[in-house]
């Protein structure tokens, strides 16, 4: 019987071949730029084992734990306060960014561009800026989280509202309601499940960020990590790392539970 099945592999076109080859070259160029070294990879396990042997057991001295616990609470305060204010401020920003709601195309475009800029600057850079602006301490960290949350939630709240079901909004428009009334009464309630989901994710992100803001003096437990490494006090640094891991995983679990509890299966 004649074989009528297609060939197993198709020969790439010249252009496709060039594309694949360029991709591979770029990856190698980046590896070179990143200082990739097989030697270092092979010689790192003994050094890592050395670090592990010096870091374990972690420092569980009650005084240290009490100090780190206080810093961890401060970290969570920075994260929760920053995320809460950020989420609240994101709503008006998102209303300006969402296309076809209350603002015209130009305002949408300008707001979205500004939000892209805010997101493009890393949280740690915002923390550095606020340390200069308001001085060392947790307030600078909280402001950094606020700005970072607006960059994230402002954009996704706008997308959520644009994607919300249009039926209820049309029904209210047909009653002669103003745009702002339609948005408040139909669009925002329709987008609420997505808002909650996005806000909880913003909280998780804020907790992760707030744990390292201390590296630049913006409050929280990050400073303890820096001091631990700077003074070669690896057991304490390990305690900090483990605390951060436990808290971040805990927050993710609580956030997941809250998401299911509040919005159920509905998205």
């Amino acid at each position, binding site marked *: 019987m004649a074989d009528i099945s297609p060939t197993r592999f198709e020969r790439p076109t010249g252009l496709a071949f060039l594309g694949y080859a360029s991709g591979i070259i770029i990856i190698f160029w980046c590896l070179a730029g990143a200082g990739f070294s097989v030697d270092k990879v092979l010689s790192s396990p003994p050094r890592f084992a050395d670090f592990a042997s010096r870091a374990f057991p972690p420092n569980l001295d009650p005084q240290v734990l009490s100090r780190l616990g206080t810093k961890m609470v401060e970290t969570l305060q920075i994260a929760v306060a920053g995320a809460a204010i950020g989420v609240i401020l994101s709503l008006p920003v998102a209303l300006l960014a969402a296309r076809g709601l209350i603002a015209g195309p130009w305002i949408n475009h300008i707001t979205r561009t500004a939000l892209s800029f805010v997101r493009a600057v890393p949280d740690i850079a915002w923390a550095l800026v606020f340390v200069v602006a308001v001085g060392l301490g947790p307030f600078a960290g909280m402001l950094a989280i606020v700005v970072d949350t607006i960059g994230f939630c402002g954009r996704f709240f706008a997308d959520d509202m644009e994607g919300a079901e249009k*039926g*209820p909004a*049309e*029904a*209210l*428009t*047909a*009653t*002669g*309601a*103003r745009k702002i*009334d*339609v948005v*408040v*009464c*139909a669009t925002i*309630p*329709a987008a*609420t*499940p997505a808002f909650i989901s996005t806000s909880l994710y913003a909280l998780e992100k804020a907790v992760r960020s707030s744990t390292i803001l201390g590296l630049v003096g913006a409050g929280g437990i990050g400073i303890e990590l820096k001091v631990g490494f700077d003074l070669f006090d690896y057991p304490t640094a390990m305690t900090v790392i483990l605390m951060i891991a436990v808290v971040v995983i805990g927050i993710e679990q609580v956030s997941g539970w809250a998401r299911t509890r509040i919005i159920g299966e509905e998205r």
Partner: protein
Amino acid sequence: MVVSAVDIEARSIAKTYGETPVFADVSFRLARGEAVALVGANGAGKSTLLRCLMGLIPVSDGQVNLLGVVANTAKGRALRTLRARVGLVSQKHNLVPRLSVLSNVVHGLLGKEPGIRHWNHALAPKASRDAAMSALEKVGLADYAMRRADRLSGGQSQRVAIARAIVSAPEVLFADEPCASLDPSAGEDVMDLFFRLVKDEGVTVIFTSHNVDHALRYGDRILGLAGGALKLDATAASLNPTDLRELYG
């Protein structure tokens, strides 16, 4: 001959989407208190025509007079004021699912009374709450006022949508296949209720329907769209189901 007041007048209206014509040269006048069924096959443009008459989507040509106002050129506050005098019941109930039934009905007053006091039943003035409860009583759902809208059955939801449409005492009601998404029994209940209410209030109604029996039973007059033109304009009494079925080709 007695000329009654005209609530809706379409003068040679046409609608095209890009290059695709939906309908052209459609003209008719609807007298106050009339119930008019708009019939036609899928894609004949019934819903589009209904939305053009309300000024929800613009016409490509011609003129629509709604309650003495040129609806197709009205903008901003004038258009909102005009819309506040009419009501719409759609195929889907389009309630806001996470809010209470009462808040959804209070929203029906936003056209006449815009602002924060009508965003939610808890903020609404007593007169508005009373009006909303009265509308819910008329559709038999006063006991469900505080239930979340997404906890209702399809038929109940559509009755709440009717309450929202009548709460502002509209002069004209538009209904776009109000029972199409319901099972036959719930559909019959909703149609009976809707037309009993509008007849009681003397409201002008224009409704689209796929159901020939509904069109003949509830309409005083039948308008038929086919092939992008108004092919039928006759009183329901002068027609039989076979005449209408011809419209569906």
